[in-house]
């Protein structure tokens, strides 16, 4: 209860995006990713940004939730943007001090890069985690990659692995806080001393955590075997994924999006950001 895990945060709501087939969403996200990196015209960028904003409105996931998810990544975004500012040596020199040179091109590049990252993150988390349950997602990945089974790739096993991993994240955090409390009760101190002392203080947490993870894995395997689990071959599903009319529109829209961005790049040259 004391931990906030922002992985696989499904936000329950009724929206067309929630209803989409996970495969459609995966395809859309991939197209969107490519489009974001291909786009270098201002108009194309504006269009992509508009799509992100409209998606948020349609999905009914509150902005507050989305901002909270982005907050954790602020450091990464600022760091990459800052690197860009200092490393670019094109355009006009704006400011100079000791070994630091800031060019106008650097600032623009950094801004665009930050926008790209934020757009990508918002789009992926919105489509794949806020509006899709982890189970739907792995099901989607499994069926989408099913043809690869022909060349003997263990797709089902891979999907099951992902499902189990996602399922046990909250269990593990819960367990960690329990063990931490127990060791704190025995006078453990995790927040003082040097690096080595702190690393050593973690041993009484990590060992019990590993031991119980192995125990749990063992129990889970036995429980699955008791219920006659024997891998993916011939397994039927209770909820079969089915493409609906909405999905066809979604897929077409994804293709149109990428094509549109490329066309804008070529035919609407207003201002290019490279």
């Amino acid at each position, binding site marked *: 209860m004391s931990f906030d895990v922002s992985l696989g945060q499904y936000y329950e709501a009724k929206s067309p995006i929630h209803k989409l087939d996970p495969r459609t969403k995966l395809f859309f996200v991939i197209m969107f990713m490519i489009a974001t990196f291909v786009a270098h015209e201002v108009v194309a960028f504006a269009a992509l940004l508009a799509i992100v904003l409209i998606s948020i409105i349609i999905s009914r996931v509150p902005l507050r939730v989305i901002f909270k998810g982005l907050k954790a990544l602020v450091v990464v975004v600022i760091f990459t943007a800052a690197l860009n500012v200092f490393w670019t040596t094109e355009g006009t020199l704006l400011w100079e001090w000791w070994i630091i040179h800031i060019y106008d091109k650097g600032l623009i590049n950094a801004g665009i890069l930050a926008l790209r990252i934020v757009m990508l993150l918002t789009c992926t988390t919105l489509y794949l985690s806020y509006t899709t349950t982890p189970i739907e997602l792995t099901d989607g990945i499994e069926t989408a990659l099913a043809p690869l089974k022909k060349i003997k790739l263990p797709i089902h096993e891979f999907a099951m692995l992902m499902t189990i991993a996602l399922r046990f994240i909250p269990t593990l955090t819960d367990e960690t806080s329990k063990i931490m409390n127990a060791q704190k009760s025995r006078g453990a101190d995790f927040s003082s001393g040097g690096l080595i002392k702190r690393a050593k203080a973690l041993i009484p947490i990590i060992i*019990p955590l590993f031991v119980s993870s192995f125990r749990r894995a063992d129990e889970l395997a036995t429980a699955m075997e008791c219920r006659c689990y024997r891998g993916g071959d011939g397994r039927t599903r209770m909820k079969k994924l089915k493409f609906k009319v909405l999905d066809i529109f979604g897929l077409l829209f994804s293709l149109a999006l990428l094509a549109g961005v490329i066309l804008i790049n070529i035919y609407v040259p207003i201002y290019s950001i490279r």
Partner: protein
Amino acid sequence: MSIIELKDVSFIYGKKTPYEIKALDNVSLNIEENLITGLIGHTGSGKSTLVQLLNGLLKPSHGTVIVDGEDIWKKPKKIAKIRYKVGMVMQYPEYQLFADTVKDDIAYGPKNMGLDAEEIEKRVQKSAEFCGIDKETLSKSPFDLSGGQKRRVALAGVMAMNPKILVLDEPAAGLDPKGRREILGGIKRYREESGTTVIIVSHSMEDMAMYCDRVVVMSNSKLLLDGTCKEVFSKHQLLKENGLDVPEITNLVLKLNELGVNIPSDVYTVEDAVKAIVDLKATSNKAKEVEDVI
């Protein structure tokens, strides 16, 4: 004299989120020194939360926790020190063992307290003895032991810190009857010899009646009853309304009373019940009608 005092304590999980839960609602409570106090309540009544407030693992949302005459949150940076005074054995403590040998694991707490090697050795030996861990086991790996033995090692690890107050969250959960008796009996013996104040959280009314001097009952995040076993278990109606019960043997005696057998209903252990029935039989040799019913 009360060694722990809770004043209007409330605790809220996930404050200011949609998942806000009030786990404790204005609880005031005194724990008397040198007694075994039992804490009962159905699942989710706030017992475990209450217990974690006692050694500062959780900070109350409102109210104060006073241990040994001192507000434990007066100096938040010194909160770790309170944990030497209030020893806590969490639920299923066997999962917290980590060291190479049982001995090292028991010594972990005393080592954290900064005691010298000689004193640690002495304490390890003593607490191992209380918990029924023999010399051979001390040099084994804790992961090679059975569940019940592991639990004893965990208990010894906390006892070795010589806390003034020992808090145990469900110490006998999931053990067989023999393991239960040994663990709880060991705790009782330890209390008698060391004069430690003990708080036991449990679901078992039988254990409460057998080992506790005082019983505190929680229900729906609030304090429901607080008193001696006699006082608390006499309110069987109220207990049942709150999803709890009296010891099975008391239920039997109550049923016998209903059928017209005239024995005192404040009987909470099998031993007392046997005594009451034998007494009745002695008197009923004179009054013959009761005999037929038994």
